[in-house]
């Protein structure tokens, strides 16, 4: 047993490294394309990406001079690869430019809003992954029977229900009529309290911070505000995930190991949870990983609808007023980084649960 684990560990580390190397490569490809898009604009426009905070108070003449300086300093009239390398350098060192609409530098603005988005995303992941797995297994194990007959139309409606319509209906029902779940992130009274110096912000996530501060009332309040967005966000992804799992289980059911497990006299529950479950898990997590981008997109949309001031606030603000490329560009890169990290996390989770995945990656 000991020898086995010793042999396993380096393989696992190797796997982690390989998976991690995908992140810089993907970022390279994405930034290349994004800067390719920026190259479609004239150099004067590209100079906006490097404008300092103070540029707003300059006179037209001074602004012109500064722009020419920037064009020279960052080689904005040179070929693509030179400009690109200067831009990457400025990304690695600086604060990703100043956004005139946000009236803030882009990277700090994004970082400050990240916990809000992460909180929303985490809660919905925690909600829809287990639910999706359980209901998909149940429906696929006995297709066209009682549970499946309820499940299929429900999943159908959920996948074809646009999130904004669901959000609108939920708001009308639970906010206007019942007054259970209000929109926004926190109630007005508490929103002052969390900015007081006695309330320590450790993670930025209100549900965790309030517990750490021993403020149970704020915890309950933030949960009440989270309920509707998390539900709206989860329902679509729950339906897609459980449909994938249902299809996989139906394929898996006819495999020989299931038949042999049954022949050995195991109970249905044991066959399902000890045998089929593990084999279904890998495709399920892969499907979540592939749709990581659409999950985060969904988070942004939900944030906008429910007026959560998360990362998406950056783009909403950037679109209200004069062109604001630093914000849009920074937002794109930042959300790609978040998605890649989420994919990495899911890959690792999958490898821990399914040894076949590790071996395959090392083989290829």
């Amino acid at each position, binding site marked *: 047993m000991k020898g086995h684990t010793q042999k396993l560990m380096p393989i696992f580390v190797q796997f982690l490294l390989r998976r991690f190397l995908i992140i810089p490569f993907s970022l*390279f490809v*994405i930034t290349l394309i994004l800067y390719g898009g920026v190259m479609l*604009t004239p150099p004067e426009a590209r100079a906006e990406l490097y404008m300092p905070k103070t540029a707003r108070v300059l006179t037209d003449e001074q602004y012109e001079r500064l722009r020419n300086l920037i064009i020279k300093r960052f080689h904005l009239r040179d070929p693509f690869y030179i400009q690109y390398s200067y831009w990457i350098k400025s990304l690695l060192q600086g604060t990703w430019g100043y956004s005139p609409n946000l009236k803030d530098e882009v990277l700090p603005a994004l970082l400050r809003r990240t916990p809000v988005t992460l909180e929303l995303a985490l809660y919905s992941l925690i909600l829809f992954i287990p639910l999706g797995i359980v209901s998909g297994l149940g429906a696929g194990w006995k297709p066209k029977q009682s549970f499946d007959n309820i499940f299929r139309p429900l999943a159908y409606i959920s996948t074809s229900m646009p999130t904004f319509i669901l959000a609108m209906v939920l708001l*009308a029902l639970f906010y206007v009529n019942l007054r259970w779940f209000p929109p926004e992130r926190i109630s007005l009274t508490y929103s002052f309290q969390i900015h007081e110096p006695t309330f320590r912000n450790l993670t930025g996530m209100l549900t965790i911070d309030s517990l750490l501060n021993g403020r149970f009332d704020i915890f309950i309040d933030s949960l009440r505000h989270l309920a509707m967005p998390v539900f709206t966000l989860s329902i679509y992804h729950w339906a897609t995930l459980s449909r994938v799992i249902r299809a996989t289980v139906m394929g898996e059911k006819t495999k020989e190991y299931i038949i042999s497990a049954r022949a050995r006299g195991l109970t249905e529950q044991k066959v399902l949870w000890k045998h089929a479950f593990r084999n279904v898990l890998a495709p399920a997590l892969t499907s979540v990983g592939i749709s990581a*981008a659409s999950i985060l997109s969904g988070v942004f949309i939900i944030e906008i609808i429910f007026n959560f001031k998360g990362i*998406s606030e950056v*783009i909403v603000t950037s679109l209200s007023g*004069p062109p604001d490329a630093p914000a*849009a560009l920074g937002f794109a890169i930042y959300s790609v980084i978040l998605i890649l990290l989420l994919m990495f996390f899911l890959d690792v989770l999958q490898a821990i649960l399914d040894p076949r995945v590790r071996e395959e990656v090392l083989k290829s």
Partner: protein
Amino acid sequence: MRDLRRFFGSWQNILGLVLIAVFATLALAAAWISPMSQKDPGIFQRLGRALDYEPQPPNEKALLGTLPGQYDVFHALVWGTGEAFRFGLAVAVVTALVGVLLGTLAGYAGGFINGVIMRITDAFLAFPAIAGVVFIQQLIGMSITAIGGMYMLNNQYFGNVVDIPTPLTGIQALLQKSDPLLISLILFSWMPFCRLVNTLILTLKRTDFVQAAQALGASPFWIIRRHLIPHAIAPVIVIAARDVGGAVILQATFTFIGISGNSTWGSILVMGRDWVIGPGGNIFTYWWVFIPATLAVILFGVAWNLLGDAINEISLPLSATIAKEVESSISGSPAAVNAASMKFFDQVENPGILNKPAMQPALPAQPIVPSLTRARAALQQEKIQEAVATYRALLHQDYRIEKIILDLNRAVGRYPLEAALWETLGEAYNQAGQLQQALDAYSKAIECFNRIKNT
């Protein structure tokens, strides 16, 4: 014919088709169903005074009532259908084309090229469409302001302000005229197609009929066009059909949250959003401002989803055969014979490690019924490829091996230069347990193949 009967066998398929037909009729006959007014033609048609803010309930002039500002709901709904079709189909068709092309090329080239293209595909997979939409809009804005124009979106006081003083250069004009959402969706949603097709092609490349075609000296273009794409296209059509509905829902969503897009159905909801919740929190007081448009969006999505499922259902047997072929070409047999057969494969083509698909298409276990008669008929008509495929399918079913061996022996007597026939014979002997004969047949196959290669 049987496919048709099966297609109309379930009510979901019929419902999907009927819904699509209704939408298509609405789109095509919009000019007759709800003619544009002569005075001011447009999708949003005003039926009263603009300052009359309260939406009016359905009446004989406006079949589904009016929005705030007295815009006719029915008119906008009907004319929005065509626009939804255009947008959805444009996104689905272009993304499918790009995905299939890239996936096929990468899969057929294999090796390093495949690795690079698939890694790039994975990189694209990590890009959210919403970021693309905003980015493209900002690019347009940048290029307009850089030449001294004015570009402001959702401004607090003025709303959208776009003013272009001088003519734009070609690419800028193109950017300015195009729909950012359309570009963004096309740029960032072809990846599932590419991955799916790539997986299928890599799998198909190892099947016997493709190997046989290669052994017969078919050109790569011919193999891709004749053997690979036709077999990989069914699941692509399924996803594309679902994508049509998905794209329209996404367009409405983006319009609703005010990021981009000009979906008519979405715009109806934007105009009516303040009236969704009526007095006393009753959402049915002004039901006509949001329920018709909502239903249109939902039903459009459902219809394309159902159609996709229906196509999936009738194209199942095809995938089943592929799955069987693949499984059998990998499964093991006695070592010596296996080695000989591997050698044959190596000489025909270096298959490399079969990439385990990350996203597997649905592969059910429904066998087709190939028959000896069919195989013999194919041989008679000199369709050797088909005959080989049929015999192999029979072999995998353990169907009367002695008869197959007899047939094949006769066939190799007639066509002694066909590597594929010899190879099949080897496999038949192998399955029957006559290993010496199997080895002989395999070596014959290698010999034939070498001869073809040398000439």
